């Protein structure tokens, strides 16, 4: 037993040896992308598959090693490294990092190619590369009939590289590179079948919507930089002590690593709370600089709200969720990887990464939670009425992301992170299942035209069922149930300072969402797999997919089941009691946040683990939803086929089907006006006022004056002489006046 633990606690490659090669994890997929993209055409299908998959596989192995290294505790010595922003004794444990030097520096600002892997990003590394690999494998079969395969794999590799950059970055700017990189890749992949302009438009919509988020992200970054500067000017020794740092070290850190490094921001967060004493606290007004007058707390809140907008763009939350459903235009593996498992969770990752700063501002947290809750419910309701299997899954993704945001917003970071992971598994599985269904049914996506597939596509059916149970929690011993419940439990018992009502509100919403999720997911499952095969089906008989596709399904389904163990309270909690495995696992990353929350008293974080009663209560809600669905689609509707549907029902259904007309609303209040404004400005201001009136007008007037003057030249010598005479007269008169005066 000890042998085993010892084995797991010693990394095969010691951290200090491994860390310099962290960059390879990004480089491999990038290389793959380059090769596939440039030479793919000549390489041929098989080679492209080989290159792409092996690139990801390599990245996966490396990630595994990296992950292993982060938990290395060979000989009881936990892996650790000095914190560049902290005092000498201050170390970062359970993390490995490497700094590849300056990316760019100007003025007193700098950004480094700094990579950091700790437990938080480690988990994501594994998800990205692992799930990514499975999906690559899946795609080799799924895209077998497409000529653009080389583009596809190039883009896919590119995406993975960007996503890895996002999670491994140790500073905001580098993270932003990944942040936009994944957006770019998803733009390319959504519009992969560009000949269908609707799909291409969907890609653009995704990119531009994301850009709206990035706009907020950028501004937030700049404000953060300003705040760091202000803090640096105003803070005194006690502040730095409270943060476990010293002015000298802190400034050195900033000059070496740049102001927006996460470790540095942590220190800032640790120094800001009132409890720490010192010259700077949340209530302190900033003295000089562009921000002068605002308090640190206020600025922090607005920064976090801006980040929320940014995250909403990437993670499809209100008000920017609209792009995700359209993004289903892309190939299904893409939807699985990008729009379910990885990219869309970037927002959640961002907040976990900056949890220490986030907990400084209850307002922001409350907003995040509420936004999450509303998005989640809205999406769930829309999902009720969708008939396109991918659309349903898309909305369910939005809904699940909303749940994660609720968790983040209420300070249950570990649970949110865990749900991120489990969701990655079961949602990927669901999407791939859907893909497999489409693949086997001539690309039919309308669940009304499927049905009865459980006989024909056994593996797909089984995995789909497992994942459905996982997401709904109808069968409680499933990862989804536990992770979701962990969030709701935390949401229920955590309290935001001054905003206690939020937790209740969000909790109630959560219960409704549970039921709703159970309902629409069961609906999809029932309509797709059970019952009789629909008469409108494209193919008389569906066929099961090849192993490339089913193997990933099985693995993912298994993962979707097994990972519930992480939520079990097996680990000893420091200071007595037990805590869930995952919380314990993430604690090195999240400790600063807890400290800040404790000191600043912004969030009261409850550490109790749910009792069986809680579990039962949550389960009941899931059963409720599932039961309703079962009743409706097994009994109710089949029984009254042919009977007219009541008007109100149809109205409701239509509204839901049309996504509550949100897209139309945006079109009407946002896009149209901007286009109109542009048109007016161009026609009126630019073309008419500036160019015609002012510019050409000047020329015109000049010419006309010339024409007028020219009329004086009558050709009559005597007239000329007369004018001369008059001029002389005038001159003489002037002269005489001069004399007399």
């Amino acid at each position: 037993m000890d042998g085993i633990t010892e084995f797991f606690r010693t990394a095969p490659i010691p951290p200090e040896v491994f860390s310099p090669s962290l960059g390879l994890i990004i480089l491999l997929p990038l290389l793959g992308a380059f090769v596939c993209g440039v030479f793919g055409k000549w390489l041929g299908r098989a080679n492209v598959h080989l290159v792409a998959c092996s690139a990801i596989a390599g990245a996966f192995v490396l990630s595994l090693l990296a992950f292993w290294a982060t938990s290395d505790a060979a000989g009881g010595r936990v892996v650790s490294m000095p914190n560049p922003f902290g005092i000498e004794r201050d170390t970062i444990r359970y993390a490995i990092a490497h700094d590849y030097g300056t990316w760019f520096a100007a003025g007193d600002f700098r950004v480094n190619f700094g990579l950091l892997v700790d437990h938080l990003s480690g988990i994501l590394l594994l998800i990205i590369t692992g799930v990514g690999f499975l999906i690559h494998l899946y795609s080799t079969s799924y895209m077998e009939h497409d000529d653009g395969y080389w583009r596809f794999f190039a883009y896919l590799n590119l995406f993975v590289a960007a996503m890895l950059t996002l999670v491994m970055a140790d500073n905001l700017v580098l993270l932003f590179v990944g942040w936009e990189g994944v957006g770019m890749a998803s733009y390319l992949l959504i519009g992969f079948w560009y000949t269908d302009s609707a799909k291409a438009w969907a890609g653009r919509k995704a990119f531009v919507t994301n850009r709206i988020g990035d706009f907020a992200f950028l501004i937030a970054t700049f404000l953060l930089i300003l705040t760091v500067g202000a803090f640096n000017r105003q803070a005194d020794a006690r502040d730095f002590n409270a943060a476990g740092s010293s002015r000298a070290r802190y400034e050195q850190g900033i000059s070496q690593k740049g102001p927006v490094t996460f470790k540095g921001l942590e220190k800032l967060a640790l120094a800001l709370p009132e409890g720490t004493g010192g010259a700077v606290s949340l209530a302190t007004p900033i003295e000089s600089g562009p921000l002068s007058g605002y308090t640190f707390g206020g600025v922090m809140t607005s920064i976090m709200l801006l980040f929320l907008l940014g995250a909403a763009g990437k993670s499809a939350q209100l008000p920017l969720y609209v792009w995700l459903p359209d993004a289903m235009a892309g190939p299904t593996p893409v939807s699985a990887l990008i729009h379910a498992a990885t990219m869309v969770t970037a927002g959640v990752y961002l907040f976990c990464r900056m949890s220490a700063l986030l907990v400084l501002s209850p307002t922001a947290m409350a907003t995040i939670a509420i936004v999450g809750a509303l998005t989640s419910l809205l999406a769930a309701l829309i999902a009720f009425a969708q008939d396109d299997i991918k659309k349903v899954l898309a909305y369910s993704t939005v809904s699940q992301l909303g749940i994660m945001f609720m968790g983040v917003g209420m300070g249950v970071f570990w649970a949110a992170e865990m749900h991120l992971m489990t969701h990655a598994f079961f949602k990927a599985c669901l999407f791939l299942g859907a893909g497999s269904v489409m693949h086997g049914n001539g690309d039919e996506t309308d669940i009304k035209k499927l049905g009865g597939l459980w006989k024909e596509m056994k593996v797909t059916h089984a995995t789909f069922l497992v994942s459905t149970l996982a997401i709904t929690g109808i069968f409680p011993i499933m990862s989804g149930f536990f992770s979701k419940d962990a969030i709701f439990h935390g949401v229920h018992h955590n309290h935001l300072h001054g905003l206690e009502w939020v937790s209740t509100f969000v909790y109630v919403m959560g219960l409704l969402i549970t039921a709703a999720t159970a309902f629409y997911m069961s609906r999809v499952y029932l309509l797709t797999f059970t019952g009789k095969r629909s008469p409108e089906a494209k193919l008389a008989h569906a066929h099961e997919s090849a192993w490339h596709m089913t193997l990933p399904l099985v693995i993912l389904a298994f993962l979707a089941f097994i990972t519930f163990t992480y939520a079990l309270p097996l680990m000893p909690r420091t200071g007595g009691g037990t805590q869930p495995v995952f919380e314990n696992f993430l604690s090195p990353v999240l400790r600063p946040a807890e400290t800040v929350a404790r000191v600043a008293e912004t969030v009261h974080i409850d550490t109790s683990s749910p009792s069986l009663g809680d579990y039962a209560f949550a389960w009941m809600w899931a059963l409720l939803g599932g039961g309703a669905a079962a009743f409706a689609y097994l009994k109710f509707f089949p029984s009254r086929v042919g009977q007219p549907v009541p008007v109100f029902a149809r109205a409701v259904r239509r509204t839901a089907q049309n996504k509550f007309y949100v897209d139309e609303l945006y079109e009407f209040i946002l896009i149209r006006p901007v286009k109109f404004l542009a048109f007016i400005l161009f026609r009126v201001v630019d073309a008419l006022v500036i160019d015609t009136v002012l510019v050409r007008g000047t020329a015109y007037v000049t010419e006309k004056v010339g024409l007028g003057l020219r009329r004086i030249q009558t050709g009559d010598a005597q007239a000329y002489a007369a004018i001369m005479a008059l001029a002389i007269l005038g001159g003489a008169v002037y002269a005489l006046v001069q004399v007399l005066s």
Partner: protein
Amino acid sequence: MNLPNITLAEFLPMLPAIIMVVAASVLLLSEVFLSATASRGYQAVLTVVAAVASGAVAVGLMFEPPREVFLGFGVLDPFSSFLTLVVSVGLGLAALSAVGFLRRRGAERGEFYALMLFASAGMSLLAMSSEFITIFVNIEVLSIATYALTAYLRRGTRPSEAGFKYFILGAFSSAILLYGTALLYGATGTTKLNDMAGPLQQALSTSPALVYVGAVLIAAGFAFKVAAVPFHMWTPDVYEGAPTPVTALMSAGVKAAAFASLVRVFITVGKGMDPKLPLMLFATLALLTMIAGNLMAIPQRNVKRMLAYSSIAHAGYLLLGVAALFVAAPGEHFRLLSASSLSGGTPLDVARSDALRGILYYLLAYTFSATGAFAMVSALERREDEEKGTAWDLERFAGLAQRRPGWAFAMAAFMLSLGGIPPTVGFMSKLLIFQAAIDVGLVGLTVVAVLSSAAGAYYYLRVVVYMFMHPIPEGAQPLERNWGTEAALVIATVAVVLLGILPGHVTDWLAQAGTLFGQ
């Protein structure tokens, strides 16, 4: 009574003029012995040789010490010598461009070149004269010659009409000038500029009206010769009607000589009298001339006429330089022409000699650019079209770049130079003038000048547009080449570009030429 003994050395300063007169006489005499059909190629050559010779002598004279000659009826100073140089340049180029022009019309006669030479002699002497009667006589010498030249081509109505207008108005204006002279004579009792300073002082106290009115009349007389608005009215008509080479000579030589005399007279007369008067006088003239000249040129499609208006505009810039001469002390304030104390304390005499320098350089630059441009016009025009009035239409230039790239390039250089675009001499000369004006603080006027020249760029560019960007009109007759014209074009182009890039030596001379006898 004892006759003043005039040594031969006294004639040295007149040498350029003498050369020209001799050449003219030779031409006239030789013409007597020639049959109507004899080849007359030598005449142009002789003229050019005379021009070159006199120009060379002038350069030599430029380094002679400034002094009075002929008992103060004339002075020799670098200023006058430089002007002689300018005149001979104009003469040479005009003569060269005349070769082909006359041949195409079968109007080659010795008289033509002789008259040109006489006119030039008059100009060169005018630049030297420092006594009113001498000035008047010389003005008449050059005017009468040009009257004749204007009406030289007897076919068609235009030459005679032009001649008539020029003659009537010219005589009118010179009468006015003369009357002004008489008044000044009455006030001071002398007609020699160098003796005038003293008596003028008293005259200003005893009978100021005479002096001022006299000054105004004289100014008007000169304003006519330099074609300053509103005394410019004759210019377009005469320039259009006159044979193009003559127009070239007029625009270059006459203007130069007139400016020379104008400056010389008013430097002296202006002394002692309230500085506001000449300043106001010339500033106003400059203002009107710059604006009107450029604006009226814009709608012209007739290139020859356009160049006439442009020559008016350039007179305006020169007048700006002249006005700069008469800013007695920086710090005077007028509305438009704010003579403010921008200057970081340049001594006035330095500023003044800078202004003179500017004027001279400008004259040289303009001579090259304008004569070149007119040579081009003369090469393109055809007698048949004159009555239709299309002989000088912009269409003539259409597609020239494809037909004769060399010509097009030359013309483009002239146009850019006239427009004052670097790296041509036109820019450098404008720069010198503006510099002088700003130095004494005529900033307002300079801004006007600058803006009007921007407006001017438009019509110069239009020629370029036609040459480079318009297709060759169908049915365009072949352009016959002629050594004279091409020589003129080459010389002018080289000068325009070189003086623009390396103004070096010329400006070294100018450093000298900026000195005016008795200034």
